[in-house]
């Protein structure tokens, strides 16, 4: 009798027997959600180039995915991805990186490329902490949490809403999910891959070891249950007032629109240049 095999194992680099994520880390759930999306679309990993920065989430494609992967300097994967897309317009270029990488040190590249509506898919895996370096406060860490660099509790206001900032910058597709919503996440990733324009998906992902323990949470199971309980679909959120929305996570596809995509505009520009029209 032939044995059942995991349908996504064929996408894993043969020289990588395990992921390096901590036990219970949400990043593994995200990794599966991405590969499941690619599988369901009937696409091949060679249709993609993956780009990631520095941090735990950056280890989702690197080295796990058996594909072209560029593991860049901290905060810069979107900028590198820009160049890759310019050189390989027919490939899908996907950035997978963390909240610290994309929104803190890399914030400006996120904002500018959302503004450009450059044809990239960007997954921002938000775990509320700098996990890889041992648990330091991130711009997404709630007020009062004790981390290694905020031993008396954080004193900064964290980001209210990263997705809102990306929407305001001009991205044409923005969604937010958590690791409690892997099927919905896969659906949004499929959409993002197939459309043109800057497609941004923020994914709240549990970090039980570096964040959970500091915030007094007891593990992956509790953190995912907490995401599930606090999540609120966008269309429901609209019916609630600001006090009722406090502490809730608004999930769903928040924005989807048509607007000029940058690399298509570049093609038009080239046509103008070749035609002698300035």
């Amino acid at each position, binding site marked *: *009798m*032939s*044995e*059942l*095999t*995991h*349908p*996504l*194992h064929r996408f*894993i680099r043969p020289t990588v*027997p*395990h*992921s390096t*994520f*901590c*036990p*219970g*880390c*949400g*990043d*593994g*759930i995200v*990794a*599966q*959600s991405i590969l*499941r999306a690619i*599988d369901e679309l009937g696409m091949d990993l060679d249709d993609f180039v993956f780009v990631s920065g520095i941090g735990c989430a950056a280890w989702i494609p690197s080295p796990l995915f058996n594909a072209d992967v560029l593991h860049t300097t901290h905060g810069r994967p979107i900028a590198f991805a820009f160049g890759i897309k310019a050189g390989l317009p027919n490939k899908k270029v996907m950035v997978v990186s963390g909240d610290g990488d994309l929104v803190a040190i890399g914030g400006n590249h996120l904002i500018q490329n959302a503004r450009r509506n450059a044809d990239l898919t960007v997954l921002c895996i938000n775990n509320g902490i700098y996990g890889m370096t041992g648990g330091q406060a991130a711009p997404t860490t709630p007020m009062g949490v004790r981390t290694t660099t905020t031993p008396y509790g954080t004193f900064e206001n964290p980001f209210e809403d990263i997705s809102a900032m990306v929407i305001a910058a001009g991205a044409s597709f923005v969604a937010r999910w958590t690791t409690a919503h*892997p*099927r919905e996440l896969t659906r949004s990733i499929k959409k993002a891959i197939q459309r043109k324009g800057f497609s941004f998906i923020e994914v709240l992902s549990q970090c039980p070891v570096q964040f959970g323990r500091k915030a007094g949470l007891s*593990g*992956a*199971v509790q953190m*995912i*249950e907490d995401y599930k309980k606090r999540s609120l679909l966008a269309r429901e959120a609209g019916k609630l007032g600001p006090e009722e929305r406090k502490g809730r996570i608004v999930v769903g596809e928040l924005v989807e629109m048509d607007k000029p995509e940058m690399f298509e505009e570049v093609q038009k520009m080239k046509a103008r240049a070749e035609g002698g029209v300035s």
Partner: protein
Amino acid sequence: MQIRIYPERCKGVEECGLCLHVCKKQVFKPSEGLNLRGYRPPEIENEKACTACENCMIFCPDFALVVAGKKGKRGGPA
């Protein structure tokens, strides 16, 4: 075989435990022994109760569980 566990990929029911939690039918229980890296994988206790909802497969962060799909589309024989 409806469910397959890859025990060497698993990072343990104590440290992770998501599969046991997301299964609505109590199909799994912690195994007696540890894997080579010292984690305690799950083992199947009640396979007949499985409805192939695929929750365990989808929520496992380590690609360590596969369930034969309802329509046999995914996770078919090797």
